[in-house]
């Protein structure tokens, strides 16, 4: 190929014929342009040829040759941005970082992402709820992606409070109260973990939590707690949460700890004030 340095043009052969310097320069410039054009054209041709050859001979994509829906595609993109570091490129999980998502289903994704637990900030005893990073639409997309590529429990439909209130209470006290407390105030688990308060939990969050058993919570499959029974439990929890306290200030509804605090601080405090006033000082 010709040199690229226009300055390093070989001078014309020997004693040049008559041609004034201007004309010689013009001739030189024209040939320089032509050479450039030829270079570019040659480059382009080579590139196009290479690309065409590649697309003809390159192997087909290993994963799927079935078409994915728009939601799944968008979900894949979200996944690869936010989840892949801990959960692996194919949902297989990464040792000591994140579990496999094969079989967790869209219900699991909904619970974890909608409560803000995922993406996890750091590895610690508990995944805490935090403000959600993803919008509802993005969550739907992630759900679609994970469900399509791993399968698992799906979201329920219909009224999630459509169950027997009293039966829900019985089931809640038998299965849930030991970790989450009589009325869902939450509870302490071993070594820094805790079962969260249900105060801010929506119907669907409670349902999907029962269904998928997030982190240390046991799994309550549909053969163990039927969908009707789950609805009863949700009805009970949400009703009790919203109901008034007929006896006055609820003081946390956790029983004797707060009651003891109140009697000492308010009761004995008020009475001490009273007897200071009534009696004499030394």
């Amino acid at each position, binding site marked *: 190929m010709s040199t690229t340095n226009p300055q390093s043009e070989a001078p014309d052969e020997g004693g040049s014929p008559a041609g004034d310097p201007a004309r010689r320069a013009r001739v030189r410039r024209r040939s320089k342009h032509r050479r450039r054009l030829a270079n570019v054209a040659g480059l382009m041709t080579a590139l196009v040829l290479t690309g065409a050859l590649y697309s003809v001979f390159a192997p087909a994509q290993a994963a799927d040759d079935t078409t994915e829906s728009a939601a799944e595609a968008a979900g894949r993109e979200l996944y690869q941005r936010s989840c892949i570091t801990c959960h692996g490129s194919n949902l297989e999980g990464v040792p000591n970082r994140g579990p496999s998502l094969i079989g967790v289903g869209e219900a699991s994704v909904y619970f974890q992402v909608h409560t803000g637990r995922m993406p996890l900030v750091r590895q610690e005893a508990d995944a805490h709820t935090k403000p959600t990073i993803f919008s509802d639409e993005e969550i739907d997309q992630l759900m679609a992606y994970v469900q399509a590529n791993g399968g698992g429990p799906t979201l329920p439909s219909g009224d999630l409070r459509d169950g027997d209130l009293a039966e829900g209470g019985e089931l809640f006290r038998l299965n849930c*109260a030991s970790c989450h407390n*009589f009325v869902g105030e*939450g*509870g*302490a688990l071993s070594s*820094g973990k*805790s079962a969260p308060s249900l105060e801010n939990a929506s119907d669907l969050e409670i349902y999907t939590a029962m269904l998928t058993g997030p982190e240390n919570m046991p799994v309550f499959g549909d053969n163990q707690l039927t969908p009707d029974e789950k609805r009863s439990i949700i009805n009970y929890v949400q009703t009790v949460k919203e109901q008034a306290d007929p006896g006055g200030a609820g*003081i946390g509804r956790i029983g004797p*700890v707060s009651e003891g605090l*109140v009697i000492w601080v308010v009761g004995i405090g008020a009475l001490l004030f009273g007897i200071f006033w009534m009696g004499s000082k030394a």
Partner: protein
Amino acid sequence: MAARTTHAPGAPTTRLGQAGYELDDRIIVAPWLRRTLNKVYPDHWSFLLGEIALYSFIILLLSGTYLTFFFDASMREVVYDGSYAPLRGVEVSAAYDSALRLSFDVRGGLFMRQLHHWAALLFVAAIVVHLLRIFFTGAFRRPRETNWILGVTMLVLALLMGVTGYSLPDDLLSGTGLRIISAILLSVPVIGTWAHFAVFNGDYVGEQIIGRFYIVHVLLIPAILLALIGLHLLILVKQKHTQFPGAGRTEHNVVGNRLFPTFAAKATGLVFVVFGVCALLGGLVQINPVWLWGPYNPAQVSAFSQPDWYIGFLDGSTRIFPPWDINLPGDYTIPALFWPTVVVAGLMFTVLALYPIIERKLTGDTASHHLLQRPRDVPVRTSVGAMALAFYLWLMIAGGNDVIADKFDISLNAMTWVGRIGIVILPPIVYVLTYRICLGLQQHDREILEHGIETGVIRRLPSGEFIEVHQPLGPVDSHGHGTLAYGGAPVPKRMNHIGAARRAIRGFFKPVEEPAQVDLEQLNEIREFPAGEESRELSPSGRPADSGRPQEPRD
């Protein structure tokens, strides 16, 4: 003012007076009445703490009687069918059912239940505060050891009342406690299983326990408590109340108010104030919402299960005690649960009850004492008491360690270890700290007596040195040091304690006197000693009889 006479000199003229005479004709009450009305009671504020306990007991009796009209102490299974929808159709015991009915279907029933429960918490709290006052001021010394033992006995009985009482509704929270009581009975070596079977009429849970708790709670222990309270008060009245050292107070007198009308009026006022506090809490703050806990089921439990506060120390000791089962030859076991429950509680209350005797043996002090001691003047006792209190409070905190772990985001396992380590190292630290503080306070008292009160007035001596002017409290010796001995009474530490400031102007929202007028009044008082002004008498301590403090302002 001479009383007018009609028939005979001194005969009554009013109907009431005549009625009084008629009464005395039949039962000669006048001597007793006059003696009682004239009885003098010291009126330091800390002497009213026992009264708070007494009045809350009366409230408990009254509200408790109301509750018995509605409660059904039976463990028979019934189906709840009342107003509270989330429990409708659930199988519960008749006791739980009656508690729910009282709360939701009886007008004002929930208020009475809550009043009763708050008064119970207050009852025990008041006993504890009262016990602390008796302990730290040395009021348990001879001749009052019997009253001390009676008091500790009543404290234990109050705890038992509380446990049997809150277990009666048979809800999930108290039922969990019942299970633990069963385990504690079982854990006693040799006789544990026999004791359990006697109390529960067989294996846990049986069908008798609620009924038995009921009769213990409404009949047996209240009867014993009433008798002991009567005895406690009788001894108190007979021995006369103790008093703090001060002007005119000796081991052989009592200074204060006569029963009638001042002391009786104040005591009656306290009755109503205690009732008022219980009623306010009973309505405004929810307590023991058994409908939220649900009925007791031995297969169910809730996170954050604690007993009432006064049993919290036992919950704490049980949580932190290590899993030390003792396996004896012959395949016998002393369960680990025995030590933090039966032994800890037994030792605590035994040492508490015998404390006067222990202290008497250790100090060799066998004299009678009617004057109290300031806690700083007995640093060893005060430090021992602070140490015991720290031990007790630490156990109570350990009893709520899961609540603390959850609310403050601390590892539950770490809380257990904190409890275990703290219970060993904290009490000695508290002992040493308290001892040093007591000594420091004592030294400060002696220093003021010796050098006088710091007035804050700076004076420059001709030599150029700056000194602070001190106001001596009494006569000084040739070196300028005070010669007053410490008398066990509080030493004035500031100038306004010795009357150097003008007395408070009367009037709460706006003054009702002119300051200038008051100044004039005080100036005249200092210049002359009007006859009959006994309050200006100097007592042997060199201070005016009423310690020179400004008269209690009328507002």
